């Protein structure tokens, strides 16, 4: 029976409670027996105070049940007292008041214990549920005594693992540990000490520590996880570093202009302008622009305040601190600087490019001068040769020239003519390349132009020429130049084919085509694909050897023809099959013709 009761009790309460219950019960029973014995033997020195042992014990651990224990003990004490002391009223009153005292004492104990318990629970709750990590450690050797769950979660430890470790050993690196020890040895209370602790896996975790001594031996330390903030800060710093490296080392001059004044300039712009950062700050950019370009620049900068993203670019002359002129290509973009709209200006130093292009222009002018002089010098000695040859051939009998000699002289004359032609082509080409040639546009029927070329050139006697051009087709172009282009293509067709030569000139454009296409087709030797482009290039030495074998007398006429058509915004293309023939096609845009 008793075994069953014990089993049931053990079942319904924790082990410690069961043990305490046994202790209280046995103490109370002992007190009752001892009191009964002392009353029966009239041993006065064993007093009722014995009962306070189980009562205080019970009230300490179980404040409310302590009252019950006090009540039971009071009843037991009174029962024993009444049994032995009756009818001594004085003694009975004393016993009753002593029994009441049990309850009063138990109540007082219960009250204070409750109060203490409540405070402790509150603090424990705060401790456990705090958003801060809290650790209590020894002030002597920094051994951790207690931590809350937040602190454990921060570093990924369990309570069992962390208790007994020293706080300083949590620091990630020896350097951080040293820093922590130095700080804690100096001050027993500190706030906002940022340090990196190591998690269980060895990763770093930035925390903000504040500590304070609770008593002589314990330090309470709170930790706030600032890892995310630190990582963000680091990223931000890295970004700032990257940007500043970019701007510091950029070969492009970079300026930030706000409300018209320079807010930022990078070293490249200082190198470009000769002014230091401080000298540039607060100035307006147009102060550094050469007076020739200032109006253009101000016009360009006017649009900066409009909130367009990109404002295009412009080439501007700047005057440096030393008074030198420098060319800069300038690009402007709208940005935000310090949360206000601003303009980011990039300036690329193109002084060298400008110098080179000026030099190229000068060189071109000089080259043209040389070509003109050379042409003059080459033509002059040809005059006596041509004159004398004309003279001899015009009167063979008078000069006693036989038929065979006359033929030789005529061949000489042909060569002089060719040389004359080459010099003329060279001059033509130099005019075309200088870009100074003005086309004089007119509208003319294509078919009659082609016919007039054929009539004056004498190709009809050398080849069978067919024309397939609708009578209604007209071109709007420089008639004389197109005449010479068609002449060159026909000459080319005759030169690079053998009798029986068949040349076809045809027009092939649809009504809605944007271009007119005029083709000259021959049945000549054809052109290898590899030299399709080279045949249009004047004096291409690299290809000269390749070209010279088959196409030894190309001259400059094709280059000139192509340039002329390109000046009309058109082009000449070629298709060819070796030993079958070639087709050269002139493409002239119609729109261009209409526009003019």
């Amino acid at each position, binding site marked *: 029976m008793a075994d069953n009761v014990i089993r049931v009790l053990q079942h319904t309460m924790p082990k410690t409670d069961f043990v305490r219950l046994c202790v209280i019960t046995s103490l109370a029973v002992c007190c009752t027996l001892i009191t009964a014995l002392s009353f029966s033997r009239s041993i006065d020195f064993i007093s009722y105070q014995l009962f306070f042992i189980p009562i205080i014990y019970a009230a300490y651990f179980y404040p409310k049940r302590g009252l019950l224990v006090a009540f039971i003990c009071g009843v037991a004490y009174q029962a024993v007292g009444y049994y032995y002391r009756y009818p001594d009223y004085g003694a009975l009153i004393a016993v009753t008041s002593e029994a009441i005292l049990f309850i009063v004492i138990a109540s007082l104990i219960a009250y204070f214990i409750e109060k203490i318990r409540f405070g402790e629970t509150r603090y424990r709750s705060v401790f456990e549920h705090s958003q801060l990590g809290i650790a209590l450690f020894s002030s002597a050797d920094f051994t951790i005594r207690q931590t809350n769950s937040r602190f454990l979660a921060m570093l990924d430890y369990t309570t069992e693992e962390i208790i007994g470790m020293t706080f300083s050993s949590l620091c990630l690196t020896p350097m951080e540990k040293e820093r922590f020890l130095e700080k804690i040895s100096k001050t027993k209370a500190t706030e906002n000490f940022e340090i990196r602790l190591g998690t269980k896996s060895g990763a770093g975790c930035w925390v903000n520590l504040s500590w304070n001594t609770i008593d002589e031996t314990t330090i309470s330390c709170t930790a706030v996880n600032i890892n995310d903030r630190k990582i963000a800060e680091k990223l931000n710093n890295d970004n700032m570093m990257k940007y500043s490296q970019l701007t510091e080392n950029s070969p492009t001059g970079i300026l930030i202009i706000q409300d018209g004044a320079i807010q930022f300039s990078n070293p490249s712009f200082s190198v470009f302008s000769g002014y230091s950062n401080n000298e540039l700050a607060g100035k307006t950019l147009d102060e550094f622009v050469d007076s020739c370009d200032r109006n253009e620049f101000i016009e360009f900068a006017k649009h900066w305040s409009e909130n367009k993203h990109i404002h295009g670019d412009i080439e501007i002359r700047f005057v440096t601190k030393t008074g030198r002129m420098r060319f800069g290509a300038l690009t402007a973009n709208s940005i935000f600087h310090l949360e206000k709209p601003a303009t980011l200006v990039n300036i690329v130093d193109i002084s060298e490019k400008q110098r080179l292009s000026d030099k190229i222009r000068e060189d071109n002018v000089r080259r043209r001068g040389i070509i003109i002089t050379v*042409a003059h010098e080459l*033509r*002059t000695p040809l*005059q006596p040769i*041509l*004159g004398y040859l004309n003279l001899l051939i015009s009167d063979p009998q008078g000069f006693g020239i036989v038929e065979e000699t006359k033929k030789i002289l005529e061949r000489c004359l042909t060569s002089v003519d060719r040389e004359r032609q080459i010099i003329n082509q060279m001059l033509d080409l130099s005019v075309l390349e200088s870009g100074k040639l003005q086309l004089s546009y007119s509208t003319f029927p294509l078919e009659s132009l082609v016919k007039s070329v054929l009539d004056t050139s004498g190709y009809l006697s050398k080849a069978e020429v067919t024309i397939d051009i609708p009578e209604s087709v007209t071109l709007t172009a420089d008639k004389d130049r197109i005449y010479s282009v068609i002449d060159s293509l026909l000459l080319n067709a005759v030169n690079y084919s053998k009798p029986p030569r068949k040349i076809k000139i045809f027009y092939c454009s649809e009504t809605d085509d944007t271009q007119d296409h005029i083709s000259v087709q021959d049945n000549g030797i054809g052109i290898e694909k590899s030299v399709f482009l080279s045949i249009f290039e004047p004096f291409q030495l690299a290809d000269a050897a390749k070209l010279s074998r088959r196409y030894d007398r190309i001259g400059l006429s094709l280059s000139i023809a192509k340039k002329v058509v390109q000046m009309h915004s058109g082009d000449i293309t070629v298709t060819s099959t070796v030993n079958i023939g070639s087709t050269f096609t002139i493409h002239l845009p119609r729109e261009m013709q209409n526009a003019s």
Partner: protein
Amino acid sequence: MPHKIMLVEDDLPILEMMEILLRRIGYEPILVPDVLDALRQIKAEQPSLILLDIMMTPMNGWEFLEKLRGEYGMRDIPVLLFTASPSVEEKIAGLNDPKLGVLQKPVSIIELKAGIEKFLGK
């Protein structure tokens, strides 16, 4: 009486050749290798036409032409610029002188004849 043609030209081989050529096509050449002499002789000789080189010293063909037409008042004498320099045609187009033409060196006997006949007739 054949037409007198004054040839102002400082290149002697050309001068010698042109003398024969001009005679051959039926004109009487007056050869002047020094451009200053040409100005001195022009009133006395009264040529029917002047063949004028351009690149000469100490006075070039353009300066000679200016003096001839201006200072000397000889606006009616046809002048054929006889030159190896390119782009002379563009320049004379701007002068608006009906008695001015160009013969581009080297010139053939046919071109020479045609050029002179344009001003003097056959």
